[in-house]
């Protein structure tokens, strides 16, 4: 194993961080660049930015946010939200993103994944999968969770990895924002279905939930927003807790001078 990554997620709308509960009722919690620096110092292993702006101006602002973050934070950055074509990858990567996460556009045109993977490498092609249980079946939703697709989660995951996706960001819409913990059955089933790294997302309320995601869900990385943004737990607390549970994490490095 590599060390399990802890990835704070910043949902950004028009240049400000927001965090939703079940994708609605957004609360503004601040400046993304300042927050990214705080997470960098705190020992985050990677940062994830999701742009949920609806307007063209909001999307332009995101490029500035990524660029300003990459100026001072020397960590891997994953960026998603509103990515619709190969040009978007190019532009986000040139701002300093290392990985680009795509969701609805890949459902519209799966070839986007193959094209991006060939051009930029599988390691930079993350596919975000939003999953909600419908009649006992894990269904994939697009458009920020508003639209049900015909895909079942595990089938879609196998399709996109065959096309060259290098990582899956798996969100349980049933759990997102509830603090009730990851959907462990979904994570474990996904772990069996694909060989690429899986980032678990949606529902973290306690540090034990992070441990469960790794030990029972078999994921390679855990993503969380609320518990870190609202200061419920720090990243170093999370790492200590996971290390005590026997999970290998990257320890904090002594800072220079």
């Amino acid at each position: 194993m590599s060390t399990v990554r802890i990835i704070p997620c910043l949902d950004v709308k028009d240049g400000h961080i927001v965090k939703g509960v079940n994708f609605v009722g957004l609360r503004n919690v601040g400046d993304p660049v300042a927050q990214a620096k705080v997470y960098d110092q705190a020992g985050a292993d990677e940062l994830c930015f999701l742009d949920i702006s609806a307007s063209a101006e909001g999307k332009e602002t995101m490029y500035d946010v990524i660029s300003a973050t990459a100026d001072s934070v020397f960590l891997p950055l994953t960026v998603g939200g509103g990515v619709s074509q190969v040009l978007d990858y190019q532009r986000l990567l040139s701002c300093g993103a290392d990985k680009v996460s795509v969701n609805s556009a890949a459902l519209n045109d799966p070839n986007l994944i193959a094209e991006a993977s060939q051009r930029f490498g599988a390691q930079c092609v993350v596919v975000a999968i939003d999953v909600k249980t419908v009649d006992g079946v894990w269904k994939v939703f697009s458009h920020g969770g508003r639209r049900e697709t015909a895909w079942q989660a595990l089938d879609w995951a196998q399709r996109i990895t065959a096309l060259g996706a290098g990582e899956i960001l798996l969100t349980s819409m049933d759990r997102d924002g509830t603090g009730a913990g990851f959907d462990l059955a979904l994570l474990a089933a996904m772990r069996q279905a694909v060989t690429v790294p899986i980032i678990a997302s949606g529902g973290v309320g306690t540090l034990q939930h992070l441990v469960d995601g790794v030990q029972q869900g078999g994921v390679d990385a855990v993503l969380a927003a609320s518990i870190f943004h609202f200061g419920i737990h720090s990243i170093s607390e999370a790492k200590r807790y996971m290390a005590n549970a026997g999970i290998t994490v990257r320890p904090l490095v002594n800072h220079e001078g």
Partner: protein
Amino acid sequence: MKCVIVNHGSGNVRSVFRALEHVAEAHRVLFSNDPDIIANADHLVLPGVGAFSNCMHSLSARPGMLVAIQQQAREHQRPFLGICVGMQLLADYGEEYDGCSGLGWIPGRVKPFDLAKIQDCAIPHMGWSTIVPTRDHPLTHNLPQPAMVYFAHSFVFHAAKPANVWAQATYGKTFGAIVGAQNVVGTQFHPEKSQQVGLALLKNFLNWRP
């Protein structure tokens, strides 16, 4: 002193630029696809993301580029750093997609991680692993501990001679994390994305006088 990052269109050039600029003292850091500028570099950096063959083709597509790089690194013995695919290009051959010849400066082949032998390890290898130097070298002096760095790759450098592997990392099995020969060195990981450890290594590179 000039440190030139070779801009061949497929790398995360700006991130490498920002990190080098962050640690540069005596150096001016710039990125360029102009062979004349590359021919005047004191230190050369070749970043790379994407497929081996894409990278190699974009280097050879630019007139004079390969010659300028060869001249600086091989004839004038300027310190040269390849990052990720930029490191893999130092090999004789890369097997990604249809396969493609590399620069051939360090004997070896770039092959996929063998999934069958790496149980419980997802591919690509994406995340932080410890590098263990196999020799005492200025590049890895005084790195903050633990010396963990960020990897994102599905292919690995199989060096023909153990002497060319300067540091190893383990992900399912042990592989070459840093390869080198005289003034040429390559890192499979991304120092520009590896916080203090990566910045310290880049600073060592700029101070390196092989």
